[in-house]
């Protein structure tokens, strides 16, 4: 049975969609059957970041409403084996995602995929709650900046009260802190919160750190998940994140990369 992982943050523009695309692609590169779902109904963007916007026929809401079946809606990635995208609807609102409907689709996906990555919309309302509701694990995407950290804390509170695991008194959702858009130089000069600062405030296990990188914008311009860019420092950092998520030591190449990336040459 597949694992459901929500990529969430509260605040918008912190890197949830970038992370969802990168993380799903990275898992598929490692041979895992993976699907990434866009929960941002009305504001879909995952298709653009994944570069499959012109192949969308049916979407998540169509499947829930029975207007198309899952196989018709799932888009198979052309670059990476084992990778599928379930796009969001552009024309509906977030209320179209009902608990029952989403449960049915996720149940079907769990039988077929090892990892189901849910790209959450921003906010703390229905859209964000339904995206996290069925999750087994959560990547809490946080920028080293006051409003993002505060919103992440609110999201952490919701993960422990508003999810199915919380409501049904099951093992809590496993939380992973992912700090993105990190700029070591600014941390050194004292005007950006450090990794330790953010972790200390949020008090959840740190999965990894993604540096601020111009390559991210270039990759999204081209519709290429950043983990496919072998030269990108951010792409390599995401690969490290995936390795530690899978419980592996990052390869020595990455380790050196990590050190130089964060602590300077």
């Amino acid at each position, binding site marked *: 049975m597949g694992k459901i992982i929500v990529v969430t943050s509260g605040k918008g523009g912190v890197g949830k969609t970038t992370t969802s695309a990168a993380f799903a692609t990275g898992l598929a590169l490692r041979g895992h059957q993976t699907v990434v779902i866009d929960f941002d109904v009305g504001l879909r963007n995952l298709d653009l970041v994944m570069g499959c916007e012109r192949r969308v026929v049916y979407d998540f809401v169509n499947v829930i409403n029975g207007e198309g079946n899952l196989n018709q809606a799932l888009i198979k990635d052309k670059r990476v084996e084992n990778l599928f995208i379930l796009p969001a609807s552009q024309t509906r609102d977030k209320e179209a995602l009902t608990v029952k409907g989403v449960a049915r689709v996720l149940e079907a996906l769990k039988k077929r995929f090892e990892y189901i990555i849910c790209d959450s919309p921003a906010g703390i309302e229905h859209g964000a709650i339904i995206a996290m509701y069925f999750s087994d694990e959560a990547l809490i995407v946080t920028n080293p900046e*006051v409003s993002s950290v505060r919103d992440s804390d*609110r999201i952490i*509170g919701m993960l422990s009260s508003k999810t199915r695991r919380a409501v049904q008194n099951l093992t809590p959702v496993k939380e992973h802190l992912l700090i993105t858009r990190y700029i070591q130089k600014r941390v050194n000069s004292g*005007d950006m*919160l450090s990794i330790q600062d953010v972790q200390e*405030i949020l008090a959840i296990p740190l999965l990894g750190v993604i540096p601020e990188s111009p390559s991210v914008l270039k990759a999204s311009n081209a519709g290429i998940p950043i983990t496919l860019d072998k030269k990108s420092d951010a792409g390599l950092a995401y690969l490290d994140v995936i390795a530690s998520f899978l419980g592996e030591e990052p390869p020595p190449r990455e380790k050196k990369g990590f050190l130089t990336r964060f602590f300077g040459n």
Partner: protein
Amino acid sequence: MTIFNYFRTLRPQQKTAAVAKERLQIIVAHERRLRNSPTLEYLPQLQQEILEVVRKYVIIQNEHIKVHIEKEGQYEILELNITLPDTEKGQINIQKSSSDVT
């Protein structure tokens, strides 16, 4: 003071990241307390209403009334602290104000 010294003092002792961390720790702790005790949501309203009642008799400022909830095992203890002004002037003539009613 030389120009050089002037700029030295302008540079804050505490870096902005340290200020951010301190502010976040305070607000996050506060919000977690509210979250973990749903009953606390009525607290601001309760505080306001108590303030209004007390003000019928005594002149006090908002900051003279403190409502505090503490958890002790299964129980929550509501602690109410009203600081009365120490001068006689703080007293309102109750006779007078109640005569308005009649």
